[in-house]
């Protein structure tokens, strides 16, 4: 569908003229925005003790698990191998940014990668502790509820940092990242190389 767009190159990397590169497949995009919707619903709208809260929670868990499976089986940029969790690389990347480097990662940059793994892990902790609260064994057990709330608060902190990181990286590289998460296509500005 998009492949006959003028100027669209599939991921090759390393070229220097302004170009469009398809990076996020539909599954990655649908999962991202659906998880956001689910988190919003359960944070703001649903009654925490109601059935809908549970249903939405299960849906989020399902989406995260699907995304993790896709991390092994999916297209190139969606795979864990394209954005391995690597704190040292993240630190190095932070250094590069401070030195004014403007190179673009087609998948997540090493800082964004850590944030993605952090968010997935946090979502899983929230969902599992929530499911536990509804079992006879853990019903009314304080530490489970505290874990659920603590993980939720950590998710909120993470999302603020996540959105902040996206906005800053858009400014640094000139790549419209949010748009790319909607259309699937990153615009790589003139003279910028990709990794």
């Amino acid at each position, binding site marked *: 569908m998009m492949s006959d767009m003028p100027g669209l190159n599939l991921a090759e990397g390393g070229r220097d003229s302004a170009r469009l590169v398809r990076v996020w497949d539909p599954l990655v995009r649908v999962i991202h925005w659906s998880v956001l919707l689910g988190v919003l619903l359960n944070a703001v709208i649903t009654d925490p003790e109601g059935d809908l809260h549970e249903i939405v929670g299960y849906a989020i868990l399902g989406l995260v698990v699907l995304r993790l499976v896709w991390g092994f089986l999916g297209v190139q940029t969606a795979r864990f191998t394209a954005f391995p969790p690597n704190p040292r690389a993240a630190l190095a990347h932070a250094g590069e940014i401070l030195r004014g480097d403007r190179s673009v990662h087609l998948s997540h940059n090493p800082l964004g990668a850590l944030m993605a793994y952090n968010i997935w892990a946090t979502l899983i902790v929230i969902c599992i502790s929530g499911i536990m609260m509804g079992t*006879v064994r853990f*019903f*009314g*057990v304080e530490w489970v509820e505290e874990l659920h709330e603590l993980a939720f608060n950590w998710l909120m902190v993470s999302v603020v940092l996540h959105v902040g990181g996206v906005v800053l990286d858009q400014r640094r590289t000139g790549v419209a990242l949010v748009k790319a998460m909607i259309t699937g296509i990153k615009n790589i500005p003139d003279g910028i190389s990709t990794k």
Partner: protein
Amino acid sequence: MKFPFIAAALLVAAPALAADLAPDMELGKTEDAVRSALTALGYDVRKIEEEDGEIEAYVVKDGEMAEVYVDPATGKVSKVKG
């Protein structure tokens, strides 16, 4: 007028618990009193806390879970959520 309706709703929602925890039943005016009353009735009291001016107890009995709300002014059960 409201009580038969609520009681009926509770019977549908949590038959086993509603049988021995009807609204209006007196359990006590403090958390401690409510805890011992529920324990005496055979409930495993998992947690007890104040919520919106009421005493809320998380109880389990025969594999069933419920939240019991007690009005501390009257000491009576105001609501049971299955």
